[in-house]
């Protein structure tokens, strides 16, 4: 392999390293989305059950 091609291949290895980091960051971001959706679902469920209680027991409203 020629010296210039060799040099370019070394630089491409650095680029691949950064691309791999971006792919790993993407996986973390996907996990964070799953966690966020779960939190939102839990919050919605909690607020749903609070509304149910408020319907059954109007005196609890605002508490």
């Amino acid at each position, binding site marked *: 392999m020629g010296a*210039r091609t060799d040099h*370019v291949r070394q630089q*491409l290895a650095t680029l691949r390293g*950064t691309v791999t980091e971006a792919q790993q*960051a993407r996986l*973390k971001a996907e996990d964070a989305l799953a966690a966020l959706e779960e939190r939102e679902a839990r919050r919605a469920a909690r607020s749903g059950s609070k509304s149910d209680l408020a319907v059954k027991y109007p005196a609890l409203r605002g508490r």
Partner: protein
Amino acid sequence: MSVQSSIAQARARLADLAPGLNPAVYGALQAELEASEAVARQRGESHVTDLLGRVNETRQTLHAEAAEVRDAFDALAAQAEVGLISASDYAAELRKLEGRLAQALNRTDTLDNLTGQLAEVEDDPVAFTDRLYDRYPSLAPEWSW
């Protein structure tokens, strides 16, 4: 009468003729062959310079893009952890970043192809140019034999 052909074909014809040629004529034809090889080498080198420019420009752009996308994924995940963003906004932002990452990956493949071409030309610039002559005969040199 002159003949237009690739360097390899001219070399083969000269080898066939060589036994019947006197040394002075053979030397002159050999010099013609070497002059054409020098031109081909120069063309190949010029292509190497062109490819290096394209590879470097693409590589630098891609590197900056990959680093930016990586940091943006990290920043997005951090927003989710502190609850600064809704899941739907987060998902939309995530898809945008994934699109950018996919494009960067495609361009990395293009870069690999360009680097493959670079290796080929740099290894043998004369043979590279000669293959061009085979493909586009009107570009091939003219020979006196």
